């Protein structure tokens, strides 16, 4: 049994919050640079130029890339041979978020009550924390500050086996078309297929966070669907920020899971071009 101090987790989370909000992951930066070369629309090219300048300013001056520093979403793989000592895991993560968002001059976007008062909690907590127990004696922490604008552009449909792959493709393409410029294209599109109602939403989240960006589904048939969907979406003409153009999405990722014989749930989760995430293994 390996012991990991909860205080250490807090310190790591503090740093993650700041780093993730100031600097894009290299694979996302490279995908944007590559996509820029293929954009034909003048106004689309201008958006790409702004995105590039923004990255430099944010990194050099330690300003958040986007004013929306997101819901603090954590995906934890906790090795079953780890013993967390000196405190509560959730509390140490939330304390890290508080410190990181305060000291990093990041925007606090969480409100206590979703409907009535909607008063701000003042420190961006509580974080949304997903945990999985895995073999080993390490903890893997993936942190994603998830913007509200693109998270709103999500959907879940309890489709049936009869809908088939064409039904799934139509659902995704129609949804992206209606989302238009709302989720800050060029986007990353995560699609979950299978499992149950709650499982499929999480699959879509995992899909949107797949690294490196553009990695295909291991099954050739789904990899083919990822490519076809990306082509169809980029042919919609939505373009950067919805101003019209050839680049609407950087990647489509599909995650699948076995499913009940009566079911075929499908979920869509999108990320904006400021697709922030950071991973640490302790």
């Amino acid at each position, binding site marked *: 049994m390996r012991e990991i101090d909860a205080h250490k987790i807090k310190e790591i989370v503090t740093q993650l919050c700041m780093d993730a909000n100031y600097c894009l992951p290299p694979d996302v930066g490279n995908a944007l640079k590559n996509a820029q070369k293929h954009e034909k629309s003048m*106004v689309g090219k201008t958006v790409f130029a702004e995105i590039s300048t923004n990255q430099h300013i944010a990194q050099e001056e330690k300003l*958040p*890339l986007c004013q929306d520093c997101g819901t603090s979403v954590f995906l934890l793989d906790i090795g079953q041979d780890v013993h967390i000592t000196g405190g509560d895991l959730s509390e140490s993560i939330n304390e890290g978020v508080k410190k990181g968002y305060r000291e990093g001059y990041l925007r606090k976007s969480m409100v206590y009550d979703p409907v009535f008062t909607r008063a701000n909690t003042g420190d961006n907590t509580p974080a949304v924390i997903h945990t999985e127990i895995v073999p080993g004696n390490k903890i893997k922490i993936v942190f994603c500050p998830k913007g509200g604008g693109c998270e709103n552009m999500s959907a879940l449909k309890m489709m049936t086996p009869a809908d088939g792959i064409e039904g799934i493709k139509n659902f995704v393409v129609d949804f992206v078309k209606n989302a238009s410029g709302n989720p800050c294209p060029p986007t990353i599109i995560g699609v979950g297929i299978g499992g149950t109602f709650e499982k499929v939403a999480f699959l879509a989240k995992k899909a949107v966070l797949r690294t490196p960006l553009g990695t295909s589904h291991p099954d050739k048939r789904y990899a083919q669907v990822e490519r076809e969907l990306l082509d169809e979406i980029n042919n919609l*003409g939505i373009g950067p*920020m919805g101003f019209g153009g050839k680049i609407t999405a950087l990647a489509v990722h599909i995650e699948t899971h076995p499913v009940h014989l009566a079911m075929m749930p499908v979920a869509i989760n999108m990320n904006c071009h400021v697709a922030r995430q950071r991973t640490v293994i302790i």
Partner: protein
Amino acid sequence: MGEKIHLQTPLSNEDTKRLKVGDSVLLSGIIYTGRDMVHRRFMETIQKGGDLPFDVKGQVLFYVGPAPARPGYPIGSCGPTTSYRMDKFTPMLYEKGLRGTIGKGKRNQAVRDAIKRYQGAYFVATGGVAALLCKSIKSAKIIAYEDLAAEAVRELVVDNFPVTVGNDCYGGDIFEEGIKRFGGTSK
């Protein structure tokens, strides 16, 4: 594209009548901020017959909740939020004389009709480039609803703040025109 249009706030209907969808505009002067909860409160105030925190006539309302300012900075990163969430409340503000709004993403038909009827404009600022956009903001102060924190109403002084005309007073829509020009063959 081409020439950039310089506009000084407050805007007149002569200003907005010059604007066409896709024009690049540089805004200077005072603009105000307000987003989700601010609009809820504006509507409640109007329904009660009260006065809004500022006179909206000729003004431009920016949908934003900025990040906190680092020491020595007037404001933190400051880019647009998605506009459709404000659509329910927007026509009544144009009716009261608001001349422009700044956000991102498309507006509904009621907002587009109001922009046409009251000779306004909807400006789109690029989303997700908030560190860049905050460089065009010279000062910021909260003037109402301080309890709303990031969402409070702020008065910003901007200098050449870059936006693109999303909806003009002739019924044009940048999102529809973009798809017409660049939409491909499949679907």
